[in-house]
């Protein structure tokens, strides 16, 4: 288990982290979400030992410390050298030698789908291939805690698929993963826990399923041409959402049935009628009043 206890960090007058506390259970995938400048990178640099001057404490319980693999957002590789040389270099830094080193490099090359390009110069690789190698280098010493900072930024679908497979494989092996991303759907699909960061603070954290339930506005999604025409005939509270409307309700099944009946009665055919399943994006919106994607794009 990894415990972040009241960690604060300032750069001059700018407070990057403000009393941040987190508990990351061993063997789980923990997502960190937040817009640019929210303090995510500072937090993971503190956890991975890159930033050593900060207030508060990081506690490792259960043998996580010492076996940490950090995958930076930047492609930090020796691009003039081969994929194999890069992997072997990071293996050697962690004390691997001889046949163990060679075997491990071979296995990682296979895992990241670059076995056939092992002798290729990294400079000639696509962005996605470099990202995969960037991850592979952090896995050479078989770490217990793996920190991935925006691992899918600017990658092609094939590489994204590989990266997801790697993360899922690590999860199956019981590794503890901290996954930082702008993409809510990635966090939702890959992670068990999530923490939302904004302006140096954790605005919410917890198990994703539990959070979605807690923040779920039990609702029904209704999409049709001129939906108000039909909805005004019943007693519904609704708000526009994407190309349709969200109907707030305490009993979604009952509302759903009422809408089916109302549509039948008025010979109205909806384009889409479904129980509304909230996404992390909706939770973030409720917590901060802003859309993460908009904030990130502004930041970028």
């Amino acid at each position: 288990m990894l415990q972040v206890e009241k960690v604060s960090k300032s750069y001059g007058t700018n407070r990057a982290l403000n009393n941040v506390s987190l508990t990351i259970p061993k063997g789980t995938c923990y997502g960190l979400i937040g817009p640019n400048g929210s303090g995510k990178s500072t937090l993971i640099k503190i956890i991975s030992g890159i930033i050593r001057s900060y207030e508060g404490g990081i506690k490792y319980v259960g043998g996580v410390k010492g076996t940490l693999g950090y995958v930076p957002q930047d492609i930090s590789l020796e691009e003039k050298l081969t994929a194999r040389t890069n992997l072997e270099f990071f293996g050697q830094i962690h004390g691997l030698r001889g046949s163990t080193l060679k075997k491990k490099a071979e296995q990682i090359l296979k895992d990241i789908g670059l076995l056939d390009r092992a002798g290729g110069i990294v400079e000639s690789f696509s962005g996605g291939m470099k990202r995969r190698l960037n991850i592979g280098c952090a896995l050479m010493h078989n770490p217990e805690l793996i920190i991935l900072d925006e691992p899918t930024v600017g990658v092609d679908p094939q590489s994204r698929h590989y990266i997801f497979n790697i993360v899922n494989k690590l999860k199956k092996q019981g590794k503890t993963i901290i996954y930082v991303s702008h993409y809510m759907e990635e966090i939702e699909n890959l992670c068990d826990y999530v923490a939302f960061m904004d302006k140096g603070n954790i605005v919410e954290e917890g198990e994703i399923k539990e959070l979605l339930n807690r923040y779920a506005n039990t609702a029904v999604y209704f999409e049709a041409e001129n939906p108000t025409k039909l909805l005004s005939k019943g007693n519904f509270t609704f708000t526009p959402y994407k190309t349709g409307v969200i109907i707030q309700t305490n009993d979604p099944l009952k509302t759903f049935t009422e809408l089916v009946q109302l549509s039948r009665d008025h010979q109205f055919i909806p384009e889409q009628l479904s129980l509304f399943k909230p996404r992390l994006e909706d939770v973030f919106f409720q917590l901060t009043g802003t859309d993460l994607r908009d904030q990130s794009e502004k930041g970028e």
Partner: protein
Amino acid sequence: MWPLTQIETKKQIKDKSLLFWTLLLPIVTIIILIELFSGNSGQKTLVASQSITGMSVFFSTFVIISIVISFVKDREKGMVARLASTPLKTYSFFLGKCIPFFIIIVLQILFLTAIGVYLYDIYITDYASYLIVTLFISVWLTSWGVAIALYAKTENTGLVMTNIIALVTAVTCGLWTPFEQLPSYLQTIGVILPQYWAHQGLVQFVSTLPGGENLGIVALVLIGYSVLGFALSLAGYRHFIRMARS
């Protein structure tokens, strides 16, 4: 430390610009100088002795460019930060990166000297002492290279600084022309610079050249300038590490 030394060496071997600055350009320059300034075969050895010792010191300065590029690139692409998350110690990082450049400078000077010995009959009176001077030159230039690298904001800073150092010292320290032929005001400036002592240290052990300075004094001066380089590096390394990690 050794994995870093190995990978840095591999990187530098693949770098064609380093090959150009450390070997191709010095060899071409030396040949041109010898052909231009030696009237007969008797003068050839004399001109070669001046050119090879002078150009060895002059062109070895350009390794500073490669040192700066290597450190700045590692800082900018996040390699320094990434390595900070591994068991690699900070001093191992610096040592591991410096060793290849130290070796490159030594090999460069020895290679250029070998050309002089085998092609132009330069006679080295004491190979061991010549090697000792070469080692001191290498330590001093590596320390300066690291010092500049740690304060450099971009790779261009290294390029500009190195060119200024190389050209100014070449003129004032007698690396292009015999020191005795320089105007006295230039000689006054020259003797306070390490390039003068480095050159005179090599000249001391080349029989065909007049002059040269005592090995003890040469060693003392070059150690002094190396200490200055390392002190500046020590003062700048926190700033470099902070920039790299934040």
